[in-house]
C-alpha cells in the first residue's frame, strides 16, 4: 500500500474501495437474486407458445403490452394446485412440530452436558450436514423398502406377516423431512439454551417451583428466540421441498415443490410454472420476513 501517496488520489482510492465493497456484492445479488423474481412474475402473466423462449413477450411493437391472468385462473380452478399447496403447508407444519418435539429435549440435553461431551454431541449433530442431502434421503429408501431393515425387523419379531408399505407413502415423507431438517432445529435451540442464565432456573427452584413448572414457566419462554429460528429454518425450506417427496413419497404425496418441478420438466409450461412459483413466494413472504427480522436482531445483538 502506498501510504505516503498524494492525499487527493488516496481519498479517491478510499471512496472507490468503499464503493466496491458495497457495490460489487450488491450488484451481484440484485442481478442474480432480486431481478429473477421480477422476471418470473412477468412470465407468469404470459401465454405458453412453441418456440424459444416458450412464452409470449410482454411487449410487442404491433400488439402493445400483452398480459393474461389465465395461468392464475387455471391455478385457482385446478384442484391439483390447491391440494399441493395445502398438503405442503400441512406436511411442513407437522414436520416442524415433530422436529421441535424431538429437537428440544436433545438440544436441552446437549446444553446441559459436560463440556467435552457437549462438543462431541454437537459435532455429531453437525456432521450429517457435510454429507450429501440427496444420499441421506436415499439411505431411507433402503431402510424403508419392503426388503429393508425395518420391515425385516418387524417380520422377524412376528409383528407383521408380510412387509408393510412404508416407502412411497406420506409417512416416509414426514420421516424424511424430520430426519433431514432435525439439525436445523437443534442448533439454534442449543445456542439459546446454552446462553440462558442458569441462576434464574435455580432461583425458581429455590422458590419452590417444581422441575416441570420451572421448565415450562422459565426455560421454554426464555428459549422462544431459538424456537422461532429453528421452526422457520425447518418450515420454510421444507414447504418447497422437492427431493424428499420425489424419492420417498407416493403418487398421492402432492407437495408443491414436486408439482412445480414436474410442471416445468414434464409439461414444459413455463408461464404456469412461474405462476405456481409466484404464489409459493407469496405464501412464504411472511415467514421469510420473520426470519430476516430475526437475523437482523441477532446481528445487532451480536455486535454489542
Amino acid at each position, binding site marked *: 500500500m502506498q501510504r505516503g501517496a498524494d492525499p487527493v488520489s488516496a481519498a479517491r482510492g478510499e471512496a472507490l474501495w468503499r464503493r466496491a465493497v458495497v457495490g*460489487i456484492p450488491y450488484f451481484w445479488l440484485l442481478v442474480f437474486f432480486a431481478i429473477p423474481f421480477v422476471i418470473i412474475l412477468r412470465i407468469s402473466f404470459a401465454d405458453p407458445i412453441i418456440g424459444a423462449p416458450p412464452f409470449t413477450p410482454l411487449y410487442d411493437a404491433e400488439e402493445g403490452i400483452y398480459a393474461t391472468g389465465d395461468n392464475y385462473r387455471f391455478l385457482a380452478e385446478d384442484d391439483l394446485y390447491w391440494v399441493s399447496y395445502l398438503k405442503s403447508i400441512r406436511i411442513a407444519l407437522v414436520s416442524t412440530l415433530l422436529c421441535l418435539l424431538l429437537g428440544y429435549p436433545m438440544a436441552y440435553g446437549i446444553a446441559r452436558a459436560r463440556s467435552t461431551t457437549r462438543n462431541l454431541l454437537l459435532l455429531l449433530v453437525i456432521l450429517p450436514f*457435510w454429507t450429501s442431502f440427496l444420499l441421506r434421503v436415499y439411505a431411507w*429408501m433402503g431402510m424403508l423398502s419392503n426388503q429393508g431393515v425395518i420391515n425385516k425387523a418387524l417380520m422377524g419379531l412376528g409383528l407383521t406377516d408380510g412387509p408393510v408399505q412404508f416407502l412411497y407413502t406420506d409417512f416416509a415423507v414426514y420421516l424424511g423431512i424430520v430426519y433431514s431438517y432435525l439439525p436445523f432445529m437443534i442448533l439454534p435451540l442449543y445456542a439459546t439454551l446454552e*446462553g440462558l442464565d442458569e441462576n434464574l432456573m435455580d432461583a425458581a427452584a429455590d422458590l419452590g417451583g417444581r422441575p416441570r413448572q420451572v421448565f415450562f414457566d422459565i426455560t421454554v419462554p426464555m428459549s422462544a428466540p431459538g424456537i422461532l429460528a429453528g421452526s422457520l429454518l425447518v418450515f420454510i425450506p421444507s414447504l418447497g421441498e422437492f*427431493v424428499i417427496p420425489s424419492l420417498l413419497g407416493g403418487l398421492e404425496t402432492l407437495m408443491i415443490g414436486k408439482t412445480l418441478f414436474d410442471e416445468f420438466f414434464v409439461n414444459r409450461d413455463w408461464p404456469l410454472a412461474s405462476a405456481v412459483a409466484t404464489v409459493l413466494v407469496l405464501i412464504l413472504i411472511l415467514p421469510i420476513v420473520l426470519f430476516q427480522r430475526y437475523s437482523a436482531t441477532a446481528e445487532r445483538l451480536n455486535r454489542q
Partner: protein
Amino acid sequence: MQTDSISLARPDMQPVPNSRSTGLDLRPMKPRSTFVLSCLFFGFAFLYIPILTMIAWSFNDSRLMSVWTGFSFRWYAALWENEQVIDALLLSLRIAFVSATFATVLGTLAALAMTRMGRFRGRTAFSGMLAAPLVMPEVITGLSLLMLFVSLQVLIGWPAGRGADTIAIAHITFGMAYVAVVVQSRLAAMDRSLEEAAMDLGGRPMAVTLDITLPLIAPAMLSGWLLAFTLSLDDLVIASFVSGPESSTLPMVIYSKVKLGITPDINALAAIIVGIVGTGVAIAGWLMVRTARRQAPARR
C-alpha cells in the same frame, strides 16, 4: 461468542448470539431426566442408523439390499469403472471449486459491507437479499434463475447456452450468502482494537482491511469456502433447472439412478463421501476442541 465447535455448523443454524464464553466449562453436571437422555439416544440413533446401514450394505456382494451374501468391494470397483459417474464427479468438483472461490470473495465483501461500512443507501434491502437465499426453497431459486438466463439470452445474447457456467453462477449466488453469514459473525465477534490501532497510526481503511482484518478473518473465510464447496457439490434442484443438456452434475446422475430404485454402487459412493467428510469434520472438530482447550486457561 459461539462455542468453537459450532462454527462448523451451517451458519444459518446459529443465528442466536450468546454471551457465554467458550472453553472449559466448570458447571457441575445437572442430574438429567431419563426422558432427555432417551431423546438424545433415540435422536442420534435416528440420525445415524440409516447412514451406517447404507455403508454396511455397500460391502455386500449381492445386488439386493436384503440378503447378505458376503463381503466384497465389487460395488466400489463398479463405481470406478462407471464413466458417467466419474465424469459427473469431475464436473461437479470443477463447478464447486470455481463457485466456492467466487462465493468467498463476494461473501467476504458483503460481510465487510454489513459490518465495517456503517450506513449506506439500501442497506436494509441488501441485508434482506443476503439472508433470503439461506431459506428460499430451491425450486424457486432454480426456476427464477433459469428465467433470468433465458431472458438475458434473448436480450443480450449472453449466456449463449446453459451448462457449467450457469450452474456456477447459481451456486455462487447461494454460496455467497452462506459465506457472508460465517464471515459476518466472525467480524462481529472480533476484537476491533487492532484495526483501531492501525487506523490511529494513520492506516487508510482499505490498507487496514487488507493488512489487518483479512488475515484475522482468514479462518472464517476458509470455513465459508468449504461450506460453499460442499453445498455446491450437493445441489440437485437448482443445477437441474440451470444446466444444459450436456452438463450433468454428480447429484443429477445420482438422482436419475436412485429414482429407479436402490442400487448398490450408489451405496458405495455414499460410503466414500461419508468417509471423506466424516474424517475431515472429525479432524477439524478435534483441532478446534484442542485449540479451545489450550486457549481456555490463557483467556481467564
